[in-house]
């Protein structure tokens, strides 16, 4: 009886701690959503009891070009992830399968792109972009986003390729498949969990990025992260409108994460071929 009671208490404690953690983690988001319904005055004077208003939504969604920023963000983030997948998967395959000089150095260099703070390289990049004429273009932003989307993808997918034994590929070749057929029919399904989860993370990195679009774009291309700055006026900060911009901006990430939640955890923590 005693051991059952201990287990019971343990379960209750565990759940209590998890619930406390969830509350702690979710409260800022809840608070942000709450603010979206408050007028600027009530932001500072009320906590839970206030007269809700949709004025902030109206102001942000209809009276500014928020949607334009939103779609710009979708274009550059999706574009960056697609380029990363198209270039990163072959790169990961090469790093996993072939032996060449300085292989580990190259792999480490790719990873090291994520080490340096973006602000460190932004000034030379700014000048290079001005000279090349890709300042304030979709292409320019997608290109520079490779610095933040590619490394993770390459490293995760490389691990998946390394887990697939060479003999599986060889068996498929002997079965009469060409290299491309081997890739699409055998390799791709096996790396899928890793590819999906790392691509999603890459998308989130790109979506949330602030430094690059702030300094490498101006009027043509504008992402939501940069657009949110507009609600800081010279005399006051429109917290309500800013909260609306941030909440709407977070929506795609939340939806994507919920859809592939299972893949996300498993994809980053397991290998491809489990016996």
């Amino acid at each position, binding site marked *: 009886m005693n051991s059952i009671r201990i287990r019971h208490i343990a379960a209750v404690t565990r759940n209590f701690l998890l619930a406390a953690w969830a509350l702690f983690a979710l409260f800022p988001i809840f608070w942000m959503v709450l603010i979206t319904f408050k007028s600027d005055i009530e932001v500072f004077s009320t906590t839970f009891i206030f007269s809700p208003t949709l004025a902030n939504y109206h102001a942000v969604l209809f009276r500014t070009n928020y949607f334009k920023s939103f779609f710009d963000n979708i274009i550059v983030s999706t574009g960056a992830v697609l380029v990363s997948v198209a270039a990163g998967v072959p790169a990961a395959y090469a790093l996993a399968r072939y032996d060449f000089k300085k292989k580990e150095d190259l792999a480490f260099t790719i990873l090291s792109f994520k080490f340096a703070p973006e602000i460190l390289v932004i000034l030379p990049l700014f000048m290079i972009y001005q000279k090349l004429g890709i300042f304030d273009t979709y292409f320019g932003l997608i290109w520079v986003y490779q610095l933040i989307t590619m490394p993770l993808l390459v490293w995760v997918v490389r691990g998946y390729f390394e887990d697939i*034994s060479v*003999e*599986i590929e*060889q*068996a*498929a*070749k*002997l*079965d*009469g*498949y*060409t290299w491309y*057929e081997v890739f699409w029919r*055998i390799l791709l*399904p*096996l790396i899928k969990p890793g590819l999906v989860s790392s691509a999603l993370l890459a998308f989130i990195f790109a979506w949330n990025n602030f430094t690059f679009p702030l300094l490498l774009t101006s009027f043509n291309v504008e992402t939501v992260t940069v657009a949110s700055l507009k609600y800081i006026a010279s005399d006051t900060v429109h917290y309500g409108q800013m909260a609306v911009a941030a909440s709407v901006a977070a929506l795609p990430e939340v939806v994507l994460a919920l859809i592939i939640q299972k893949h996300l955890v498993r994809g980053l923590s397991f290998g*491809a*071929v*489990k*016996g």
Partner: protein
Amino acid sequence: MAHISLKNITKRYDKVAALDNVSLEVNDKEFLVLFGPAGAGKTTTLKMIAGLEFPDEGLIRIKDEIVNVVPPANRNVSMVFENYALYPHLSVYDNIASPMRSSLYKESEEYIKEAVHRVTKIMKIDQLLDRLPSQLSNGQRQRVALGRCLVRKPNVFLMDEPLAHLDAKLRHFMRAELKEMQASFNTTTIYVTHDYMEALSLGDRIAIINHGKIVQIGTGSELFYTPADEFVARLMGEPEINLIDGAVSEERGKWNLRLLGRKEPVTLPGDIAERLAEKNVSDVHVGVRGNDIEYSLEPKGDGWFKGSVYVLEPIGNRSILTVIVEGVKIRIIAPNDFKSEMDQDIYINFHIADAIFFEQATGKFIVRHKQEELLREESKCLN
């Protein structure tokens, strides 16, 4: 249905030669066993023929066509990998169907269905068709891998230790099945193993490979009765052959052998003496197998060696008796009802008529009593 030929194949990995000037002819419809210790180059040889590795030097021919630069898919060979190499995301059915779904060897789905069912029935895995490889035991995975190999009609079957991971009972069963299948498939097969029982039981011929070189190619009885050197002699047979130091000398027209530094000589039969005289060797290793040694717990008179029992291991249908004579351990096969104490005195006698003579310095085969007659009779028995 094809003749396979390897000519002067050399393959190096970082200057270490995995295969060193290997030449090998495999006849059409022949079952050739590649047999040797781990790291000898057996798998490399198979992968060369499959086109998964490329030789640094030499020519590979399948059906008299040089295939050195033909990609693996176009060679129409079928291979079982030692680690199974099953597709983890496909069911057993789809795994076995895979070779018939490629653009190169495409078959209709009805044909595939029939072929898969035929093969899985033989392999006794027809109840597992919907499972994934991760839901199978090692023995079942190996049978799926075999099934994927046998479902095709290739130029040659390449099998890399396909029975290595099965338990003893299933291995024995599958060995018999494979032999039966080979007879009905009638296709050239190259089979890699490190189990001499499999080699002897399955192979039409056996190629012994060591350190990337082919040591000897021959039928099972050739290898067993007249091994090319001590290495081959040691590989064949359980317990391992006894190699005993002997000194040969000619005295008054007779050739005498003194074993284990003994004074009293044994007179050698004429054909052995002749070969030894030809070769002009005086120091030999005499190879005697465990069942060619008499033993007795009572003293037996001249020519017998006195020793003491070192250990007696009963292994079911027989026992292996290890005896120490003059500081040398001799392994003898005894019936399983034989009883003895440790360190008990024992007397043994070697059958020189069944012994194999090797040169002591090089370990090369010299002669065996009546070797030609022996092999002739063996081949008669087989036919």
